[in-house]
């Protein structure tokens, strides 16, 4: 039982990061029906900016580094949309999807040129250690607690933006009917830029969370990016609660598989899940049966 609980806690910690990345996938899909395959790279860029800020500008508080990373990842995404996606918006969807794959490879290699291909570590931020829950026999690391807590804060902030602000109303309108949104006087180009910014800034935050626990390298965005993509599909692409639930589920399932079977299958299970979801319930857990738009 305590073993199971431990896997569950580890899964939640990783899953909350997948959830944050998945939110970006699902937001962008919701608004322009694009699977932005470069999304994992925004996380990588956030991680490198975080590493740079913390290593080179010593004494920078983690909170400041986190904000800088989020801004950097967000602005990069705005630039990518402007340069690579927007000119293709009126073309068939496959064009912009291909562009997204190209941007992904481009950013990976740009990362290699700018930051070098060797792994970089964050300076130690926390007193290493964990909190033991003796009665249950499980351990929660400080960093896990930090990641879980901040993830919840970020998700709550996102919920507030989407449901309680004017730009959030514009986002929801744009995702349901872009022409009708324009006829309301909404500058939908701005809304699309803002959506990319918010989605990528969440990925940038995850980059910092990763950096705190693992090392940082130009290809680090690939695996979490794919896992989060599957999470978004599992939850129902276009659905924000779906992305959160999907992310947590993938994190937990990965950890259960690694714990009870073998960590060899940890990566494979994600794709088994993708195949299962697509063949059994392609709209995902919370997705709607909308053939074109979500």
């Amino acid at each position: 039982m305590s073993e199971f609980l431990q896997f569950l806690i580890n899964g939640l910690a990783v899953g909350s990061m997948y959830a944050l990345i998945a939110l970006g996938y699902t937001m962008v899909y919701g608004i322009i029906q694009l699977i932005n395959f470069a999304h994992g790279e925004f996380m990588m860029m956030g991680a490198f900016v975080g590493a740079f800020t913390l290593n080179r500008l010593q004494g920078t508080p983690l909170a400041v580094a986190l904000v800088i990373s989020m801004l950097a990842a967000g602005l990069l995404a705005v630039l990518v949309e402007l340069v690579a996606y927007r000119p293709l918006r009126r073309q068939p969807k496959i064009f912009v999807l291909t562009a997204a794959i190209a941007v992904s490879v481009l950013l990976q290699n740009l990362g290699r040129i700018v930051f070098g291909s060797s792994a970089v570590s964050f300076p130690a931020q926390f007193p290493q250690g964990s909190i033991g829950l003796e009665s249950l026999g499980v351990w929660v690391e400080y960093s896990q607690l930090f990641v879980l807590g901040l993830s919840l804060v970020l998700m709550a902030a996102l919920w507030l933006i989407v449901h309680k602000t004017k730009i959030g109303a514009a986002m929801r309108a744009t995702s349901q009917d872009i022409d009708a949104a324009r006829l309301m006087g909404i500058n939908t180009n701005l809304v699309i830029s803002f959506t990319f910014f918010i989605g990528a800034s969440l990925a940038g935050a995850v980059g910092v969370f990763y950096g705190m626990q693992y090392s940082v390298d130009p290809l680090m965005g690939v695996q979490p990016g794919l896992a989060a993509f599957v999470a978004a599909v599992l939850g129902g692409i276009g659905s924000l609660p779906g992305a959160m639930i999907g992310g947590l589920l993938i994190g937990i399932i990965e950890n259960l598989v690694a714990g009870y079977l073998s960590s060899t299958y940890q990566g494979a299970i994600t794709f088994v899940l993708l195949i299962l979801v697509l063949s059994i319930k392609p709209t995902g857990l919370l997705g709607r049966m909308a053939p074109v738009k979500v």
Partner: protein
Amino acid sequence: MTMLDVQDIHVHYGAIHALKGVSLKVEAGTIVTLIGANGAGKSTTLRALSGLLPLSTGAIDFIGQSIGGRPVHKIVRDGLCHCPEGRKVFPQLTVKANLELGAYIRHDKTGIKSDLEQIYQLFPRLKERLSQAAGTLSGGEQQMLAIGRSLMGRPRLLMLDEPSLGIAPLLVQEIFRTIKKINAEQKMTILLVEQNAHMALKIADHGYVLETGKVVLSGKASDLAADPRIKAAYLGH
């Protein structure tokens, strides 16, 4: 005062020449209707006026300002509001949220509130369904919502595209009565696109007849309604 002056506009969909020189005028305070068969270019005209479709050539003056080529969201802010064909309500948002989005360009909270009340008076059915998702409304109710949503932006000129399309006949009557009421009570200038020429000519002051992308006939609505050519082609006599 001429509120809208459209001069010889051409629009292409790829290789298709959809509008071949449409000119029309809308005087302040009037209802002008654009009638014609399916595919004549009525909706295309409205989409060009609101900026959803780019003009190939031609000019559009709205309240003395050239708006041809301006982005859609700015044209809305200029006061030209387009209530699109097929209603286009936001299906997953509540009726209230849809109405509030209509007032997206406004910042006067008290004005928005009193306008909401006015919409509820105009369309009591909407008030009963405020917290319902717009997608669950009937076609007629969605049309009311779409008109109400457009009014929430306090436009100078309201363009309605086929408000009778796919709606129960009883509701069609009600919607046309309301359109006339909006014009009479709020002094709203209206450009109405309709396939139902009979109803449209009844409430309009002036009419234009569109055929394959061109204006083939125009005049006072009452004259058009009496014109034997119109009767034969559009009024089913």
